[in-house]
């Protein structure tokens, strides 16, 4: 008792969004492809959930694995997400 029954959502007229990764014909999500991964990572470095990213279950699983690998190889930050490459070599030499 007391539990509210959840109404099934009205799915009529709602068009399913195609999965962006499958749709663009990419089979493998490579962890070195940081430009691709950054599309699915927030500013804080979190992986965007499937309900928002709209990816298929398969693609999302590949994506999370890739993001985690990228974090471990210092290609993506754990806390800041994508860190852009700066072209100026001078800056780097100081560090």
């Amino acid at each position: 008792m007391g539990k509210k029954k959840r109404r099934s959502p009205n799915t009529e007229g709602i068009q399913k969004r195609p999965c962006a990764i499958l749709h663009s014909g990419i089979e493998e999500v490579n962890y070195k492809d940081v430009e691709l991964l950054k599309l699915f990572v927030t500013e804080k470095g979190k992986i965007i959930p499937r309900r928002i990213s709209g990816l298929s279950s398969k693609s999302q699983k590949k994506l999370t694995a890739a993001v985690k690998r990228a974090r471990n190889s210092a290609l993506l930050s754990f806390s800041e997400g994508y860190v852009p490459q700066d072209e100026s070599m001078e800056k780097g030499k100081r560090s």
Partner: protein
Amino acid sequence: MTLRNYEVILVVDTKLTDEEAAESIDKFKKLITDAGGNVKFESPWGRRRLAYEIKKVKYGIYHLFFAEANGEIIENLERQAVYDDNILKFFDCSVTDLEKAYNDFEALKENPQKNSTLVSEALGA
């Protein structure tokens, strides 16, 4: 000895000269070949900004090996990488096809934006 396909990333400190960096990369290559593995492809990624600071360092030289090895060799490599002060980061993962992995990586280096533009178009559509 059964050999499996591995992809190994080494991140070398940028404060080293080019020769010193090449030397420490060669050291790891030798570790693989001496233990019975073989490095099929090699690919330098060059100098990159690290996503986070490692040992207070912001930049690193990335170098990739596509090699046949086994768990023992990889374990040894990992241990050596921890001891070596010139290596900032060591990362390895198994791949199914070495040649495909190598070609994919070369294509990615050539055009890093390719896949992301495809996907962002699909996201926008």
